[in-house]
């Protein structure tokens, strides 16, 4: 699916990176713990998180994640969005809760990707 499909499925609002929504994504991960994203994620392109700070953007940047979705209606502050813009990332916010958001994407074909030991 594309990032535009992710937006639609999650009933999300795009906060930056509209120009990249036609990019393809195949895998996703959901976590509020950036430590775990850094340690256990490999080649995922979408990050779902309820954590709202600049380190979410940095973590995505280091991991080559191209799309971040803040769940439970969280809206990051402007400085966080600026950082994401500068890195060419798509940021969106969805009213869904973590379990629902993951379920929605999984049911529609996104996978969790390869597991790192």
């Amino acid at each position, binding site marked *: 699916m594309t990032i535009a499909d992710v937006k639609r499925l999650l009933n999300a609002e795009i906060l930056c990176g509209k120009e990249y929504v036609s990019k393809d994504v195949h895998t996703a991960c959901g976590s509020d713990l950036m430590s775990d994203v*850094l340690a256990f994620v490999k080649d995922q392109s979408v990050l779902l998180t309820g954590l709202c700070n600049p*380190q979410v953007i940095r973590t995505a940047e280091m991991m080559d994640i191209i799309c971040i979705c803040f769940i439970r209606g969280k809206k990051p502050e402007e*400085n966080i969005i600026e950082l994401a813009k500068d890195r060419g990332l798509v940021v969106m916010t969805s009213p869904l809760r973590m379990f629902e958001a993951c379920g929605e994407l999984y049911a529609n074909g996104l996978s969790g990707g390869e597991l790192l030991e």
Partner: protein
Amino acid sequence: MSNLVLKYTVDNEDFTRAGEASSDVKKKLKMMGVPPEAVRKVAIAMYEGEINMVIHADGGEITVEITPTQIVMVLKDKGPGITDIEKAMQAGYSTASENIRALGFGAGMGLPNMKKYSDEMDIDTVIGVGTTVTMKVNI
């Protein structure tokens, strides 16, 4: 061609800025055409190390040397030092506070992750003086 040396000061006043050095290195390596797999290894290993300098020490200095065959990162802080390196290297071991956990870090996976993503890693630590972590990633 002479080696490129990059130097950064990491301050611990502002958690929101942690990762700026790693971000800059990642950008530069990409621009230089270093293979993506090596760039990613450097980015993750250095970012974990940079976060540690902010949350466990009082910031410090990072030097990154780029040679035609490897990238050498030296992260030097004047923090409290690591009492038991073997323990600190264990997955899940962390002395991070609840505050740090609320920021999304402190799962005790940083040092093991740094080891995993670098081809060579060395920790030099003196209690009360500071810690120097050296990591090498082959290109």
